[in-house]
């Protein structure tokens, strides 16, 4: 019968016991507890807890890695997908998943062109600090009065910027804080130039600019000191570094990134031509507003004048005048009528008078008897022998009364 060993003991181990045993096997190996390993980073997961999980691989194999959040502030930025790194740590087992992994506590970047790696690392680090956050970005003033420019005092960049400003918005004043923009001295000089501008209180914004060049040429704008100084700016910063395709750390921390220095100058200024057009439109609007106002007043005036005319006493006078005419006509009519009336009455009266004419009575055979000129109406007026005169129609004769 074969000798039973520990592993074939009829009393089985639990998975937990076994895994713990395996972990201890790793941990007693001093080489595995202090190891440097080089590989390419992939599958980076930055967990909300702050820990970073990734895989380190080469052509032959791969190993799961974890970096605790205590190490990430210093080294987390180096853990970038595709990056070649030298990682230090210990190998142990994550019992829950039965997985051995490298617990990374230090990292050195390798390969990838050192500059690219550094760029990616600094970018990741500053981004993790929230320095690129959109809510940090400030709007640019619409009409800047004074612009600080950090760039070289020689070369095309300052001239290009000033040419654009002169064309678009010559009302602005430029204050150049000159600096080297290339080489080892450039970053501290850029920082000093920015500081000098920050001490002023008359700037509306700052342009940080450099012409195009290689990654190495633009390197000063990927410097952490420069980036952090830009972040401190009390006024909006516009970056215009290199060509359209170049991105620098300065671009990410600036409030606005312009693709080139000239574009930066355009971005920060209103367009004079456009404002002149607006001004012309305003002048026209001003004139036509007044003309319109006056026209409206004239129209109102005319309508009031008409209304006034309607209300004028002239109309009433004319009415009166007509009424007078009417009355006059009426009156005339009345008078004529009256005359006619009277004429008729007169005719009547004449007829009646005619009827009463004593001559007419005499014609009918009556006679008028008078005594001493007195009409004789009664016998008593007469005695025998009275001399009477008798009037008949065609004459008079005397008679003697005979009683």
């Amino acid at each position, binding site marked *: 019968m074969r000798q039973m060993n520990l592993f074939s003991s009829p009393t089985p181990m639990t998975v937990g016991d076994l895994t713990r045993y395996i972990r201890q096997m790793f941990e007693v190996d001093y080489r595995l507890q202090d190891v440097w390993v080089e590989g390419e980073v992939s599958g980076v997961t930055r967990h909300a807890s702050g820990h970073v999980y990734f895989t380190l691989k080469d052509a032959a194999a791969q190993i799961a890695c974890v970096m605790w959040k205590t190490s990430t502030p210093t080294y987390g930025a180096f853990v970038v997908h595709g990056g070649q790194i030298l990682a230090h740590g210990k190998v142990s087992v994550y019992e829950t998943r039965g997985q051995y992994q490298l617990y990374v506590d230090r990292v050195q970047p390798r390969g990838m062109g050192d500059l690219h790696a550094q760029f990616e690392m600094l970018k990741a680090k500053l981004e993790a600090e929230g320095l690129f956050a959109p809510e940090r970005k400030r709007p640019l003033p619409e009409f800047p*009065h004074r612009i600080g420019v950090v760039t070289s005092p*020689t070369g095309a960049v*300052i001239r290009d910027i*000033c040419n654009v400003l002169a064309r678009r918005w010559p009302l602005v004043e*430029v204050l150049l*804080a000159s600096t080297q923009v290339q080489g080892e001295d450039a970053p501290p000089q850029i920082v000093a130039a920015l500081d000098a501008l920050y001490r002023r209180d*008359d*700037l509306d914004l700052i342009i940080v600019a450099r012409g195009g060049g290689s990654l190495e040429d633009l390197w000063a704008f990927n410097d952490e000191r420069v980036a952090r100084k830009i972040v401190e700016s009390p006024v909006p910063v516009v970056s215009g570094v290199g060509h359209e395709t170049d991105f620098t750390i300065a671009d990410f921390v600036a409030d606005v990134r312009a693709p080139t220095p000239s574009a930066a100058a355009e971005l920060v200024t209103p367009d004079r031509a456009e404002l002149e057009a607006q*001004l012309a439109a305003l002048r026209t609007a*001003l004139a036509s507003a007044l003309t319109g106002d006056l026209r409206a007043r004239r129209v109102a005036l005319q309508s009031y004048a008409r209304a006034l005319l309607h209300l004028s006493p002239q109309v009433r006078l004319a009415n009166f005048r007509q009424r007078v005419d009417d009355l006059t006509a009426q009156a005339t009519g009345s008078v004529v009528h009256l005359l006619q009336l009277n004429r008729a009455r007169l005719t009547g009266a004449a007829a009646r008078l005619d009827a009463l004419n004593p001559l007419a009575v005499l014609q009918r055979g009556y006679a008028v008897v008078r005594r001493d000129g007195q009409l004789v109406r009664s016998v008593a007026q007469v005695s025998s022998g009275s001399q009477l005169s008798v009037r008949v129609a065609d004459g008079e004769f005397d008679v003697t009364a005979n009683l």
Partner: protein
Amino acid sequence: MKKQTKTEELAFEAAFAKLEEIVGKLETGDLPLDEALALFEQGQKLAAYCGTKLDEAELKVQKLAAGSERVEPFDLDEAR
């Protein structure tokens, strides 16, 4: 770090904004005539002022003297 505009002269944008305001007021009408005329006159002056500002403006470029707060004129020809 806001610039205080020189007090003796109105900044372009202030004059421009004032002009826009005046045009707006005139366009709404209902102002007494003498007020409308006064506004029109003021608007004309502002428009002329803005025009002059744009026509006569000449870019002023200065530089900070190295290592000091001093501001000195900067000749763009230096940049050649």
